[in-house]
């Protein structure tokens, strides 16, 4: 066996040992690099919703717009103030939405096909929000119950094709009760990854019942509030 051949074999052996040790080191580092999931702070909640809304303007509303339910599209952002132990976060939030209703216009003489009549409303609210998430946090029951209360504002416009008849503001109070299903239980690891990478702690789908006294508390305001309306949507806590 020549010296050259021995040298080559030694070199190959060294390279092999080096590769194996490098691979082991990599495997070791992969195992040791796994961190335990630590949830990030929950500071905000955002809600995207769609629902039906009809103001208390009967029977003129039904005469003009029939059974038009909107829909109402809205966005809400809550800022968490603090967490009540074994209850859930207390927050303040703001919401803004948009809804429009349309129907056929008419004339005093009953002439048909003379255009359309419409009304649009931008409802806005400032809300105190209490989210009771103790079921999900302490008992692994993936439901969050929420109550909301606060002043409600609405800017509206109404008219017929080519003409605005009226526009203005109405003010009142809004209440809401919500039940939400936390989706984390469907794929716990994905939920943790969403938190680690994007800071989204929880994602939920919700159903909300609410009412408003907008324009019904005196003053010369158009009564745009409603006894009961509903909405559903997606909620993210981050």
């Amino acid at each position, binding site marked *: 066996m020549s010296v050259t051949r021995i040298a080559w074999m030694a070199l190959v052996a060294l390279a092999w040992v080096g*590769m194996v040790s490098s691979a082991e080191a*990599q495997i070791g580092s992969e195992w040791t690099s796994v961190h335990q999931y630590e949830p990030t702070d929950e500071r905000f909640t955002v809600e995207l919703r769609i629902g039906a809304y009809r103001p208390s303007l009967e029977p*003129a509303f039904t005469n003009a717009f029939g059974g038009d339910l909107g829909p109402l599209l809205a966005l809400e952002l809550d800022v968490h103030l603090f967490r009540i132990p074994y209850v859930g976060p207390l927050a303040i939030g703001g919401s803004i939405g948009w809804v429009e209703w349309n129907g056929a216009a008419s004339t005093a003489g009953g002439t048909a096909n003379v*255009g359309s*009549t419409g009304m649009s409303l*931008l409802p*806005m609210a400032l809300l105190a929000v209490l989210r009771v998430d103790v079921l999900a946090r302490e008992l692994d029951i993936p439901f969050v119950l929420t109550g909301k209360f606060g002043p409600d*504002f609405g800017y509206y*416009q109404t008219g017929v094709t080519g003409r605005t008849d009226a526009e203005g503001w109405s003010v009142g109070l809004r209440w809401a009760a919500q039940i939400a299903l936390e989706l984390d239980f469907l794929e716990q690891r994905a939920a943790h990854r969403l938190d680690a990478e994007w800071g989204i702690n929880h994602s939920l789908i919700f159903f909300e019942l609410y009412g408003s006294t907008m324009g019904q508390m005196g003053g010369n*305001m158009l009564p745009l509030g409603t006894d009961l309306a509903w909405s559903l949507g997606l909620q993210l806590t981050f």
Partner: protein
Amino acid sequence: MAPMQRPQTLLLPCLGTLVIALGLGFAVPAEAQMTGIYLAYGDRGSPGTDSSLYFSTWPIGLAECQANTPLQVQINNAPFSVTTPLVYDLWNGGSGPAPAACQTASNRLSSIGMAPCTRVAWDGPMISGVQQVVSVLPQDLFGAECTASGDRAFFLMAVSASNDVTTDLTTANYVVLRVVMNGSRPPAPTVRDAAGDNAIAVNWMLGMDTLTLSSARVFVDRTATMCTSGDGGMGTSTLVEGATPPTTATMTVTGGSPTTATLDGAAIGLAYGATAAVAVSVLDLARNESVLSNVACITRVRVGGFWDSYCAEQGLTEAECRARYDGCSVSVGDRSPGAALAMMGLALLGAAVRTKKRKKS
């Protein structure tokens, strides 16, 4: 162990080469890829507009032909001859999908009396090496009467002498110009009576054989008495069914085969309850205009919507309703999103100022 990078290192140069190749392909000017003279079809504007700079694929209309408005043809890549100045010659190759091959000398030889190509009385000096715009008169193509509707293939040739019938031309020395003339008016539409306030929707039906129209013109006669009730239908109007449309229209509606126009009752000077006569003409792609449609009546009426219904329900007149809801709640004006945004902005500003004051205190 280092990851395998070879496929990536090969892939990137391949992609780069492809991109560069595509880039070069796109970067080659179209003119460099052409051989011989060719037409650079300009756009004289869609039908209904007055721009007539360059010949385009839109057909020529009867009025355009009768006025003999020159078709501006832009020609690129004109050939060059050192020995003999070249001129353009225009030959008619006939109609249909397979016109006569006028580039072949024998097809232009009129001495036999049966030449499939005929020379159009037109020629002009050729300026080689530059983009040249030449004018072709519609009546040279379709005759002085403009009755020869249809398509024609015209051969625009660069030859050493006008009426050259002895030279076979190569593709470098001629280009085919296909022109379509539509000499017939589209059928007049049928208009229906309409009523409304600020948006009176005038609708009409197009003739069954009308495939594509470019625009419609709406004419309103406020002085017409034919729409006044109680006249026994004996009233008159300056608008007459089947007549040539007036030169000035109240409104022109453009777009693919329009069938409706919205008139503002106040803008055309109608009081509530007043009527006016209305008629419509339509224009096809060749800008041929139909005769006037039937004459219909429009009436300006007060249109009621939700607001009228709500005020009536409250037992209020419109004025009382406004007075009651005026102030912080209601203001009346144009329906503009600007007002809404301004109010929202003010509300937010107020909230921000209040928050800041609280923080300071």
